[in-house]
């Protein structure tokens, strides 16, 4: 199953709606980078509102997506991390350092606009 990536002006929007298995997560990483390349998008918002748990593998994929996108010149904001997920991640010892976060999609887009200065 593939995760749809939508293009909105200069940004890419991704909303992850179901539990990620390893293959889907890795497939998503590839698709997103490909899409950034095709569209030369300058910002990406990944919304995790419907995700109720993230383990260290998914966290690593997300961190990697962030660093790889940055190399390709796109800023990534992760939005909608649930309280339970945030607590679990911190206890797991994963703090997604350097990754930009926002409360929801709307705030995420605002943050990107601020960051990119337009």
């Amino acid at each position, binding site marked *: 199953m593939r995760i749809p990536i939508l293009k909105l002006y200069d940004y890419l929007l991704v909303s992850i709606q179901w539990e990620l298995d390893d293959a889907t997560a890795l497939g998503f990483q590839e698709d997103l980078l490909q899409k950034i390349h095709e569209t030369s998008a300058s910002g990406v918002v990944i919304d995790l509102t419907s995700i109720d748990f993230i383990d260290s593998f998914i966290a690593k994929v997300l961190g990697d997506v962030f660093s790889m996108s940055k190399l390709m010149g796109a800023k990534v904001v992760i939005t909608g*991390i649930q*309280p339970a997920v*945030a*607590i679990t991640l*911190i206890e797991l010892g994963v*703090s997604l350092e350097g990754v930009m976060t926002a*409360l*929801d999609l709307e*705030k995420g887009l605002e943050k990107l606009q601020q960051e990119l200065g337009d």
Partner: protein
Amino acid sequence: MNQIVFTFITHSRDYMLEEWMNLMKENADERLINVVSNEMFVQTSAEFIDMIISNTRRNNEEFASKLSDFAEKVVRLGWPLSFIIEGLHKFTLVVINGMVMKEQVTKDNQMEIIYDLDKWTSPMKQEIISIYTQTWERTVSLQKMALQELSAPLIPVIEGITIMPLIGTIDTERAKQIMENLLTGVVKQRSEVVLIDITGVPVVDTMVAHHIIQAAEAVRLVGAKCMICGIRPEIAQTIVSLGINLNEIVTKNSLKKGIDAALDWTNRKITKVEE
């Protein structure tokens, strides 16, 4: 139970009570004597001794219900457990001394008598200890519940700015609860900035600091900013001397400064209205 022991105990109540009270007064600490009036002491002591004597009638069920009543009464009186146990021990001593004086103890039966008395008093000790422990456990669990109700509230001040005042000692259990309240609150109230005020936290050690850092990181993950306010001089000193790294977190010495900074972060300021 040995017939001689049984007869002695059931027939020498007044003698034993007198002796027992003398022995206990010699050993009791000042505190207890001051708290309990002499009259009260005599009354409860009599009750205590009668209670023990009544156990020689071998009706276990009656004894158990009486004993729990008695133990509860003693708990309400505030007699320490050590005092009661000492009391039982002294009672055995009184019985042996009394029997020796009446020359009822001989070389042949002394071991049997001591063994018999021990077999009789041990279950009493155990029952009393278990009732005491149950009472303590109940108190502890009630207090735990009371403490949970004290857990920190999240107060919205201005749109997007929320304050969480922390008061009292923070242990792991409470820290987890606070973290959950904090994060659900931040998401629900859509806060951009949360100020955690630690003015009311008496001690910040490595563990408390660790919990605060974790909370700040988790707040960042859900997409808000976190600030620690109310850092007093002694807390700043302990944090630095313990080598705790709070560099990643914005800290302010007072809640007022914190609110100013939070307004600044959200591009707002408070101005006086011209009259």
